[in-house]
């Protein structure tokens, strides 16, 4: 049982949420392993308790004893256990979402990139430039990026699992998702909201460059104009 996490960590292919390449996905991956461990213990414990309760000989239990027993079981198992579990999960879990919120970064400024969903492609554009990329996105590594998401037709969802969670692209609305890649590299993304016939093929590649390289690329495109 314990071997499974070791077996899985660092694998799972180019879309694996368990092989994080940025702070957003990393926090969630840790959260997953924590919750997975906790939930496994609860599940095994409950099933054991259930089987034991079915097998054991209760002896002669008076109604009064049963009443006390009932109150104890329901108080500890029905009230305390779920309340404590839920509080723990919320306390550790909600902060894991902070890296994905477009708050002002501690230093510098977040890079803004617009992505518009179309049936069935992602159109990436860089404010202040004429650059428009299709199913492709260049970002600087180690720098927070605010992705401004919208859609030209139906609802899509922007998701690069190794970098962060997803946000929907809804016509008429603009959602902002903070992503960041720790290191330069290639990260793959997929439309996550069913968007019609070719939904299965609506993918994109996010390429994280060294910041200088990225700046040079952006500058080069500007001079191209």
């Amino acid at each position: 049982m314990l071997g499974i996490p070791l077996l899985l960590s660092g694998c799972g292919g180019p879309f694996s949420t368990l092989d994080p390449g940025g702070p957003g996905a990393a926090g969630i991956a840790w959260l997953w392993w924590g919750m997975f461990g906790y939930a496994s213990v609860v599940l095994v414990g409950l099933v054991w308790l259930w089987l034991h309760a079915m097998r054991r000989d209760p002896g002669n239990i008076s109604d009064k004893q049963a009443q006390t027993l009932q109150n104890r079981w329901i108080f500890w198992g029905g009230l305390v256990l779920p309340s404590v579990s839920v509080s723990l999960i919320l306390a550790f879990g909600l902060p894991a979402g902070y890296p994905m919120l477009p708050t002002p970064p501690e230093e510098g400024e977040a890079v803004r990139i617009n992505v518009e969903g179309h049936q069935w492609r992602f159109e990436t554009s860089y404010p202040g430039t004429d650059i428009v990329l299709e199913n492709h996105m260049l970002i600087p590594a180690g720098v927070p990026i605010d992705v401004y998401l919208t859609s030209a037709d139906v609802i899509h969802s922007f998701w690069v699992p190794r970098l962060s969670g997803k946000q929907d692209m809804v016509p008429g609305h603009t959602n902002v998702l903070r992503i960041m890649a720790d290191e330069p590299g290639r990260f793959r993304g997929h439309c996550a909201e069913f968007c019609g016939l070719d939904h299965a093929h609506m993918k994109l590649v996010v390429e994280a460059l060294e910041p200088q390289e990225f700046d040079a690329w952006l500058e080069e495109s500007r001079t191209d104009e």
Partner: protein
Amino acid sequence: MSELRTAENRERLEKFDRVWGNLPGWGQLAAVNHTSVGLRFVATGIVFFLIGGVLAMLMRTQLALPEQDILSANAYNQIFTMHGTVMMFLFAIPILEGLAMYLIPKMIGTRDLVFPRISALGYYCYLFGGIIITSSLILNIAPASGWFMYTPLSSSTFSPGMGSDFWLLGITFVEISAMAAGVELVVSILRTRANGMSLSKMPIFCWYILAMALMIVFGFPPLILGSILLELERAAGMPFFEVAGGGDPLLWQHLFWLFGHPEVYIIFLPGAGIVSTLIPVFAQRPLVGYRWVVLAIIITGFISFGLWVHHMFTVGIPHLALAFFSVASMLVAIPTGIQIFAWIATLWTGRVIFHLPMLWIFGFLVIFVAGGLTGVMLALVPFDWQVHDTHFVVAHMHYVLVGGMLFPLIAGFYYWLPHVSGRMPSDKLGRWGFWLAFIGFNTTFLIMHLTGLFGMPRRVYTYEAGLGWDWLNMVSSIGGFVMAIGIAVIILDVVLHFRFGRKAKQNPWNADSLEWAVEMPVSAYNFASLPDVPTRHPLYENPDLPQSIADGKHGLSEIGHGRRDIYGSDAVTGKIQEIIHLPSNSWLPLQAGLMLCVVCLSLLLKVYWVALVGLAAAVFVLLRWSWHNGAHPRATPVTADEPTDPPLHSRTFSGPGLWGMVVSMMANGTLYASLLFGWFYLWTASPQWQAPADGPLPLTPLIGSGVLLSLAVLLYGRAVARLRQGSIRHMQKVFWLVAAIGLVHVALLLWVLLSAPLNPTLQAHDAVLTVMLIYLLIHGGLSTIATAMQAMRVNIGYVSLQLPYEPVVLMPLWVYTLGIFWLGFAAFVLLPMGWGSL
């Protein structure tokens, strides 16, 4: 032949059979009896389950290997949409309704549900609607935008064919049956329990079904409204969900999940009810913590209406709201925990007999708890952002729904089988079926969590090789087929048992509740006499009850009058208040169902004049239906020797009809509240909402029509008050006057609608106003027609001092019509005016 029939009671029981039995041959279609209708729901549900299962197997075949093209993208999209739709709307909900309709009267010690013809109508709407929806699959034009029909994908621009229309119209048609069952179960549980069965003495299953039925009453109207609006957008171009016209696609998601989340609990609660019923029987000990469990049921019901946004965590919701809904979603763990530990405590203190149904209950525990735990994980917003719309969610929801509903349902089937067949299920084949299904299920879906974590989105018809998803999908597919074999074995087992099962003795599991006091196999009237039940465990305390019931030792054992009589009792204490006479076999439900089917089909084919004709015919049938009530010769004409203590319900001021009317108006009010929600939502949140500076509705005629309406209700109310005081003078004239005023009110309102400069196809603002006005018109018209009919009935003598029932039943409709008018006036006219002047 049941062992309860003896030489002494046989003749009388055969008379009961004649009064309560269905008509022979084709006459079966006129059956209204809850046992017949309930079993039809269950049988039809099983057929749709198998259809949904075949669709699942097609999907698993396609996904078993990467880059396969056994199914085209289009076919796959139709199939996954229909799999969800069929399983949710045509299997899970109807089969649970059917089970509840079958069991509830037997458990509360009565002979039928309180509105038998409505049961039958519900069944026909379900059957016809289900056939319409599934026929789209055969024609290869099935809906293909997912079972939650997100717009704009489902709109006429992006889904131009008839697929979405099949879904919207067909599902709305089927939902008539859910609403019917909801209203009927609420009223039956509250008003027809055995004498002395107070709420706290009800079998726990009845609490679960009461909660489920109330949740249907409040949970389904948002979906019904949403479907109507989306169909209006598709067919008539009213832009409720279109950004360019001032609508918002997110409104659809809110309306859908306002229904969709309670629905999960509508499905789970009856499942949990089966668990809470079976565990004490097999532990041979009363349920530990009955009151706690009741409390847990009520809390679950309330919380489930406050969680819908957790299906929408990624659509761009303010962060504070996200945190709120995250916490609220997790709170459900508490009532669920209470129930699980009450079950464990019951097992702990009992001596458990490990029969086949208990094996399924054990399977339920493992699977449902696992699904519940991943549910808590998903309620955590950051984690949801990562795995939302992946196979992780697919796995989670199958764990919850299959664990929470299918496993208890099969446990319940095995448990109640002897009831229907008079025979016991086999143990051997049944255990094979269980283990195949259990292992197959977990092989399919446990591994699927990982597929999701490895980043595979849901609803993709194929995937690239080498992404780490290949072996996972292969394992899931193999598991899926193992489970399918398990289901086949179970069906085989059940079919064989009808022939080879050993004969069941009376109360074969030594249960405590009344449904085991009936003859086995069950008769149409359940109980030949109606006992007092002042206890939660009638059969433990009086094991001879089945025989004394059959021998006619208890109430209403007379049948010479030929009426279908049951007791009506106080909602809280269960004390007898009246004798409710129920309608007998009737063709009206089938006729109404067929007419509604014509309406549905002609809307689908856009032949609107046929739809209008069909609607008129349906209304005619329904009015005729309401005509055959009370003292009508086809119902219960006044006779000299009719019972007076307690009296027949149509001779009183408060009967099931009044309760049915009030519960229906609660459902109706939820529909209206959903419309108000839509109005305020679009007003405050729609990106391109436009409202004219001056309200488009002419104020003078609008207020005039409201004043007339108020006057009509006032007059009607006074007439009813005088009736209650024992005076019937001028009543017929007053009713005619009220109907006349109502007519003028409707005419004025119609004039407002036609004369106002509304552009419902250009502006969402005007479209909402149009729908609101039509809604008011329908209610004004309905109240007016019903009052005119009352005036006619006074004339014939169906309404009189001795028969004061119907005007009282009609009163809540008038009050409701008045309420929605002025509320609508405030929300749609006054508020925007005040806003504009600020």
